[in-house]
């Protein structure tokens, strides 16, 4: 019986990983995260300033795997409000952290 052998095309896989199509898929995932994060933010927001400062974008980032180092397209969800760090981690004034982006990542991971 003939045997089939799989030989990965590393250059081809790399091309797929940074392609426009992959970037679009990653941006869609980040947008899904934005919807989740805005839902979390709605629980505590007073002025709405924090919730208005989510943004999504794509970037090519390095990724080290057991197969070696690669570059991949990533979708990024960020919040650039001046008090984003205080919302995420809490501080001396707001002692209960909201972990909005952390909880969003956990929610996306859980599916």
């Amino acid at each position, binding site marked *: 019986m003939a045997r089939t052998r799989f030989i990965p095309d590393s250059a081809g896989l790399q091309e797929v990983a940074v392609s426009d199509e992959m970037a679009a898929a990653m941006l869609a995932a980040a947008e899904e995260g934005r919807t989740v994060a805005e839902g979390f933010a709605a629980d505590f927001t007073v002025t709405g300033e924090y919730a208005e400062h989510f943004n999504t974008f794509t970037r090519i980032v390095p990724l080290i795997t057991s197969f070696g180092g690669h570059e991949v397209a990533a979708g990024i969800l960020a919040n650039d409000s001046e008090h984003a760090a205080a919302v995420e981690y809490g501080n001396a004034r707001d002692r*209960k952290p909201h972990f909005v982006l952390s909880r969003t990542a*956990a929610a996306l991971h*859980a599916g």
Partner: protein
Amino acid sequence: MPADLPPFPAIELLLMDLLDDLGTVDTATPDDLEQQLPFIQVNRIGGTDNVVTDTTRVVVSAYASDWPTGNTLAETIRQRLISGPHVLSGGVLDQVRTVVSPQELPHSIAGSRSATKGHANVRRFGATYSAVTRRPS
């Protein structure tokens, strides 16, 4: 209609029990944080379950008066957590895996003129873990 299953243990309560000898443990920092160091903050941020086990995602923050103490405390916590399984009075902590390893996180309020108000003398190290729990047997 089948009877409801018993609740899963609250991961925060299990961690308060497990880390009790390392410092004061709670879900929020107190007003007088600088007087209660070392302080450990535990917060569940998500997770899922398969009916039998509850796979939680938790953030554990270690507060101390200086960087070396905070870094050591955070690493001690990590080794305690991943050295399971831990059988506790409130339930079983089957397995803990590090998702994001300990690193210094912001805590002081930038520009605060009051050292106490801004907790200027506090360093904070946070880490994220995946912790799998079971109901007590």
